[in-house]
């Protein structure tokens, strides 16, 4: 008799208390983030995560969004294919996030985007530039420019600044970003009258490029375009000099931006060029204020483009949630699509009909182991 009384009175009471306690914790808005915190592109994930974290902390210090704090849940995809979709599935199903931020690498964004689209959870990529990412569906956005623009910028740079008519292209076949950027560069460069004398490939993880570089040297080129990621780019520059390819500028896209480029490449990356989304040396007040905030928070480290875009992606999301006045996926998506002239660190962000942002690019050159701002190119 007593045990039945216990069952009827005590357990429901306990349950009610637990439910109330859980509900109290529920007032935070959960935002998911997946990034390559470890692995071959760890530099990207670490950088964009720091930018995103800074934004979230800043928003929370100012009182949060819609009166609620933001809770950032981060998953590491280890730079490996297959991990991104698992991470995103976990964030959506188990952690019940209202939106997803990620990823830097186009291949991994392409992997996770269908998952977000099917679950009707908005996803904002900070710096994936392959156009196919946002083509996945109406819930996928990005806050950076896309590769057709970047390819054009680099083709014009090769022609007008480097004065190169004969260029070799060395593409990474295992990355969607590299293949896409190479294609857009080649289209524009040949349309402008240039000639691609050598079009060779490598795979991510390759360490030996002597064979490709020997063929490139024999073809006689004025510049070498390497639209890949920083680890291989640094080794390519090193081995090019080893093989005696001197005085030939080597240039690439935003995949080069990482401190490891200089760590691995050393003196061999001096004088190389790459395009990216922003430079901490741009003298506008918005950029300089951001740089100071970042340095104060992260031990004096200077934020690179991935950090700046990570920051912007979180800020744009928060702004959209505010305008939507709700955490419903559909309303956030509509608010994101309506983003106009949002003042971001990487420039005024307007989301267009294809859910991409139109931004300018900057060309960086490596000098004395530092990334120096060379020129801005507006769309």
């Amino acid at each position, binding site marked *: 008799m007593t045990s039945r009384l216990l069952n009827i009175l005590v357990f429901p009471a306990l349950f009610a208390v637990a439910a109330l306690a859980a509900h109290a914790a529920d007032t935070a808005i959960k935002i998911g983030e997946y990034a390559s915190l470890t692995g071959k592109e760890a530099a990207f994930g670490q950088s964009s995560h720091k930018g995103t974290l800074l934004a979230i902390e800043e928003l929370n210090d100012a009182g949060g969004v819609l009166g609620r704090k933001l809770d950032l849940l981060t998953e590491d995809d280890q730079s490996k294919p297959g991990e991104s979709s698992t991470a995103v599935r976990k964030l959506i199903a188990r952690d019940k996030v209202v939106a997803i931020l990620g990823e830097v690498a186009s291949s991994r964004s392409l992997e996770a985007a269908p998952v977000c689209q099917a679950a009707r959870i908005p996803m904002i990529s900070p710096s994936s530039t392959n156009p196919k990412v946002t083509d996945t569906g109406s819930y996928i956005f990005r806050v950076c420019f896309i590769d057709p623009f970047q390819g054009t910028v680099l083709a014009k740079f090769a022609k007008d600044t480097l004065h190169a008519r004969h260029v070799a292209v060395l593409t990474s076949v295992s990355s969607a970003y590299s293949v896409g950027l190479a294609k857009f560069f080649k289209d524009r460069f040949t349309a402008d009258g240039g000639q691609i004398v050598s079009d060779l490939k490598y795979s991510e993880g390759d*360490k030996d490029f002597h064979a490709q570089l020997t063929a490139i*040297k024999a073809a006689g080129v004025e510049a070498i375009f390497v639209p890949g990621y920083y680890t291989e780019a640094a080794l390519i520059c090193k081995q090019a000099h080893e*093989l005696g390819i001197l005085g030939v500028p080597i240039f690439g896209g935003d995949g080069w931006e990482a401190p490891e480029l200089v760590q*691995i490449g050393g003196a061999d990356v001096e004088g190389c060029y790459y395009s990216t989304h922003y430079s901490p040396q741009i003298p506008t007040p918005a950029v300089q204020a951001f740089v100071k905030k970042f340095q104060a928070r992260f031990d004096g480290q200077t934020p690179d483009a991935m950090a700046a875009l990570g920051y912007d992606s979180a800020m744009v999301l928060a702004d959209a949630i505010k305008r939507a006045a709700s955490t419903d996926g559909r309303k956030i998506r509509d608010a994101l699509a309506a983003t106009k002239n949002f003042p971001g660190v990487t420039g005024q962000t307007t989301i267009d009909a294809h859910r991409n942002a139109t931004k300018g690019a900057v060309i960086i050159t490596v000098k004395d182991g530092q990334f120096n701002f060379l020129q801005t190119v507006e769309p």
Partner: protein
Amino acid sequence: MTEFLQQLLNGLSLGAIYALIALGYTMVYGVLRFINFAHSDVFMVGAFVGYFVGQHLPHSTVWGSLVILATAMLACALLGMLIERLAYRRLRGAPTLNVLITAIGVSLLLESTGQAVFGAEPRTFPGVFPVKNLTLGPLVISSSQLLVIGVAAALLVALQFIVFRTRIGTAMRAVSLNPKAAQLVGINNDRVISFTFALGSALAGAGGVLYALNYPSIDPLMGVMPGLKAFVAAILGGIGNIPGAALGGLILGTVETFVSGSQFSTYKDAIAFGVLILILLFRPAGLLGKFTVEKV
């Protein structure tokens, strides 16, 4: 012509590394009749040992590189013996499939432990060997490429000497021919097998350091691709045959280099495995191997 010769040189250098790793595979197969899949990860451990020792040595000295090489070879020899003792010894009479699966398990264990302990991001190997680019007319050879070819040749000669002109080498050949009979004539099989593993792993360690000196970016999964290619090389030359492994390594390295430098560079990895399929279809014993038929 210059391009051809330059690519040949590149191919020899790459092939020498494959040859070093392939020798380990072939020796263990010769003595124990099974493929040690953990071999490629011993190669990785060698590179990491070299990395950590190299941090304490001055840059650009020849003796520094030799110290790293010796330390890595020693460490890998010990690791190889340890793996044999713990993972393979108990399974000596067991069906081949069990040992194969264990080998794969050891390989995964080494890779995952490496990732957990060292972190998955690539590290820069210290530039311990003086890198100079020597020009022979229009050809450019880097001193590290010469080091690879030189050390690989020296190790191959040393291996031939050990296997054919020493007692332990004769014992190895005896065990590989007939383990039971070898025991009957008084050979301690356990010691011989341990020695074989030590030797093979030391070569893998040397391969790891040489690879890292040439391509200074190391990570815990760096052994997977070179290991697979070296395995193909060992099969190409005839598994169990020492000169065959060396030949297979050189051929594979050269073919891969020529493909990389041509318009089919996308398929360079596919070519290596295509070669494996062709060899197994048309000459399963390999180029220098003999197909032994069990006569009842």
